[in-house]
């Protein structure tokens, strides 16, 4: 699961746990805000954002322990955070 699983890479494990918890929550929370830009009724976008966010969070958390590369993992979380921030701030609605 981890590169060089024979050596206890505690800090690498810690980075994965951080990605699954903090990273997952940030991406999920930003998703729920970015969803407000959907061209729909405000309550509908709100519900889509809120109800979808838990699936996003679970997805990020699971993927944090699947992907072999930590760089790719944090890169993807960073990229998702930036693009969701963009949509949340400059979205159409």
């Amino acid at each position, binding site marked *: 699961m981890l590169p060089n699983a024979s050596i206890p890479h505690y800090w690498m494990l810690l980075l994965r746990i951080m990605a699954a918890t903090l990273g997952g929550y940030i991406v*999920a929370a*930003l998703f729920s*805000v970015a969803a*407000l830009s959907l061209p729909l009724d405000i309550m509908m*976008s709100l519900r889509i954002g809120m*109800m979808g*966010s*838990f699936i996003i969070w*679970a997805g990020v958390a*699971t993927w944090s322990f699947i992907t072999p590369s930590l760089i790719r993992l944090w890169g993807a979380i960073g990229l998702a955070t930036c693009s969701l921030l963009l949509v949340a701030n400059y979205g159409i609605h």
Partner: protein
Amino acid sequence: MAQLHTWCGLLAAWLLFAVFLTGTLSYFKESISLWMQPELPSVAANAEWDNRRLADYWQHYLAEHASTARNWQITFPDERMSVSTAVWFGEDGSEQLVLDPTTLTLVTPRETRGGDFFYRFHFQLHHLPAVYGRWIIGIATMMMFVAVISGVITHKKILRDFFAFRPQKGARSWLDAHNACSVLTLPFQLMITYTGLITLMSLYMPWGLERAFPDADARRQAISELHAFPLSGPATGQPAALHALSELVGDAESHWQKPVQSLRVSHPGDAGARVAVWQSALEALSAHRPQRIYEASSGALLAEIQSQRIDEQAHGVMVGLHAGRYANWGMRWIYFSLGAAGCGMVATGLLLWTSKRKYKKGSELGMWCVERLNIATLAGMPIAVLAFLASNRLLPVALSGRAQWEIHFFFVAWLLALLHAVLRRSASQAWREQLTLTVILLLCLPMLNLLAPSYSVLGDLAAGNWQRVSVDLMCLVGALIIVWQMKRAAKKTLSRVPPTQVAS
């Protein structure tokens, strides 16, 4: 992935077992409340009452005794709860009265939190500010969600494994039992976990709401719309007479062709007063039940609230599926069994963790902690629940602060179970003793019920009122299951003792 499943599951499992157990009991919270309040009439199969007459009774009573209250909340009886209740928030806090709908007389049952204690505990714990409790359980629920997803991914040979049950094989058997509990009921476990998060989503994910409605008043309005729960509106300070509630109840019932479940009068006696009437939850999948809102002084219909858009319905149905208030008795038992399978899933998962590591080298302290916590939770939690129920029969009926004492029994029993699990030298001894105690309590509870002044078991049986009797019966069934499992476990350890050891 397997490690994610193992550690995510392990760390949340003890709390999840408590949540699953109390949550499963909550599907019968009305029946447990009836059992804990023998003074209340049973729900007779052919009982008849008129909700309009009840509304009339309450209107007269509350106008006389609670005219200064901010809110009156009235619930009507249904096939699960035999009485009508009124709750109001006066100057000195919340007050509640109970009415027998067939005789129109007030009854004063013993003071208890009843099944509602389990219901509250399963999403906000106790002895903690509700928000903290809800967050703690939310985090555990999220871990469960991740554990279920990673469990499915771990399980590539899901079908083949499902049909392979290898009993009497130690860790293998626990693995198979764990798989049987979880795989068979997987759709339910996924549903109950996800919808559990949805019920409290405006607490866990408030960011969209804060962004869309920066103004606090607009946000309150939006939250009320999100959860289909109407706000009371402001009081005007001008006095005004209250329209006949019975007419409003009659209007709503004839409009829906369904009974009403509850009504709320906000600012009674004020010109700004509103009456909100809710439809019965029975056989309506969505938890966001239709409501009609009337102006209290004139009786004019102000709003009819009914989920229509797809998102409203999806949201309401998810919450409805979780709470199962729509369910009739058959469906309720299915919910109960699936919830019990959820308890089994968590319990076998924990036992699997220890039995896999028992004969391997590893952290002794970790193993010791997990094993003792397993005992204190898997056996201790049922003991606490049973102590809570037993205290209901043992404490004097007139004791002041009685409801709180019952809760003390719950927590003290749990604490003692934890102490016993920690102090006992041998874990298997601790297991045996606590499970034996559970069985004794399960057997004593129906006995106690016969001895202590309580409801008439035979009378209820003869009248075909199964609600309370089922609580006693489930105790006996539970005792049988534990005895059967303990016998099996004893046989297994006996046959596994190496022959040399027996010789010496």
